[in-house]
């Protein structure tokens, strides 16, 4: 492991390089551009096998799909509009079971145009079948990128790693980056059963009639759910080897005996932890459940961790216009089977990089003491 103090984007790119991908194809977009640029520099220096600077994000995800189908390990990175432009291929990648990995520098979606952090971009792809993991810190971002290759290649499901734009992509902090040799011990060579091969000339990407089609789609869903155990297994293996723990599918921070719980994803949890510590010092029984794996959604774990709580505040940086906030909706649905359910309220904030401070989180905890159901834009 090499400890350095650098911008998270650079560290993530180093981690990806050390996974020895066969093809990296990127198109720049704020705030994930630095990841692409660092990988391009590695390529120019002869440290990366292949870097394709495509003419659009639609082309970059397509290129990595082709690369993966041909038996190569493939990676891309994007944000916001780029991910939205990729939408068609995102669905195709999952349906074709191509285990590509993508780090998303989470950013708001137009319109209005905005370059700052929120989760709308990747949340908009939540129904696609991709595995989605959200990271709290720069270290977790680079570690999860490495884990993502192992998860994707063993489940044959493309995997997205969410890293908050600017909050994580552009912050400089001390990180440990596993070396190539260390990654080799963790990540086996990519050797898919299904691939384009002149020795075994199959046809990939067939068109399916109704009954077959539904069967294929159900299969994606089932395998996405089944990926839960693989995500945990890979997480634990990584923890064994590198000593870092992110909880697996979910992570609890002082939530076990809490009455009031803040549920969230991504870098906002950092501020939430500070708020929890301040309130705990004053005797308030508060805690956090951080969702790391949003897809597959950890229904059982969430149910177990939130049962018996007085009031849960689900905070998120996304929305489903005209309906419910997506993470909130998944939490409420997970609690539905309980005979006695905790109250759950929905808090939406941080869109377009709008500040969510320690004070905001403390205010949320104060609000939910009222024990009234609410849906509030913070």
């Amino acid at each position: 492991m090499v400890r350095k103090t650098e911008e998270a984007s650079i560290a993530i790119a180093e981690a990806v390089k050390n996974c020895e991908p066969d093809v990296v194809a990127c198109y720049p977009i704020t705030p994930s551009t630095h990841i692409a640029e660092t990988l391009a520099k590695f390529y120019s220096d002869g440290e990366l096998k292949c870097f394709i600077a495509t003419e659009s994000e639609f082309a970059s995800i397509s290129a990595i799909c082709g690369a993966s189908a041909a038996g190569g390990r493939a990676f891309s990175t994007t944000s916001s509009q780029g991910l939205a432009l990729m939408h068609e291929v995102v669905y195709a990648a999952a349906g074709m079971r191509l285990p590509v990995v993508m780090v998303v520098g989470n950013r708001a979606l137009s319109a209005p145009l905005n370059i700052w952090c929120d989760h709308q971009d990747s949340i908009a792809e939540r129904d696609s079948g991709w595995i989605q993991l959200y990271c709290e810190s720069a270290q977790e971002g680079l570690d999860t990128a490495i884990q993502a290759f192992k998860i994707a290649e063993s489940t044959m499901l493309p995997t997205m790693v969410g890293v908050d734009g600017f909050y994580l992509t552009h912050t400089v902090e001390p990180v440990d980056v596993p070396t190539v040799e260390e990654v080799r011990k963790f990540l086996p060579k990519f050797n898919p059963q299904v691939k384009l091969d002149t020795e075994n000339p199959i046809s990939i990407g067939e068109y399916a009639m109704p009954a077959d089609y539904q069967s294929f789609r159900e299969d994606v869903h089932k395998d996405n759910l089944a990926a839960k155990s693989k995500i945990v297994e890979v997480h634990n293996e990584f923890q064994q080897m590198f000593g870092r723990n992110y909880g697996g599918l979910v992570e609890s921070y002082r939530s076990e005996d809490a009455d009031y719980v803040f549920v969230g994803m991504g870098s906002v949890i950092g501020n939430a932890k500070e708020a929890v510590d301040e309130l705990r010092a004053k005797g308030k029984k508060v805690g956090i459940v951080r969702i790391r794996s949003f897809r597959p959604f950890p229904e059982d774990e969430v149910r177990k961790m939130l049962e018996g709580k007085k009031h849960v505040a689900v905070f998120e940086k996304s929305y489903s216009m005209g309906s419910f906030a997506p993470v909130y909706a998944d939490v409420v649905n997970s609690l539905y089977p309980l005979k006695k359910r905790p109250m759950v309220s929905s808090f939406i904030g941080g869109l377009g990089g709008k500040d969510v401070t320690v004070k905001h989180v403390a205010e949320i905890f104060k609000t939910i003491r009222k024990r009234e159901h609410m849906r509030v834009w913070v």
Partner: protein
Amino acid sequence: MKFAIAKPRTSRENKTGDWRSSRPVTDTAKCIKCGTCVSVCPEGCVSGPDVKKSIQERELPKTDYDYCKGCGICANECPVKCIAMVLEEK
């Protein structure tokens, strides 16, 4: 784990011969074994005259009626017009 993939050449399970309303019939006495019918068939279901061989070594053309859709291109392109499109008996 399901993949929407297929093994090679499995389209052969689909016998498109029942599409046609007329079938090509070659007058082998007139046939010069030029290989045009083999070349122009969209189905690739005519075999026989191999253009890589000398004329003496070439075989007569043979249509695989399991797949022939009766388009008539072979008849239209035959340089000696020795292929007739004959209506299929019902």
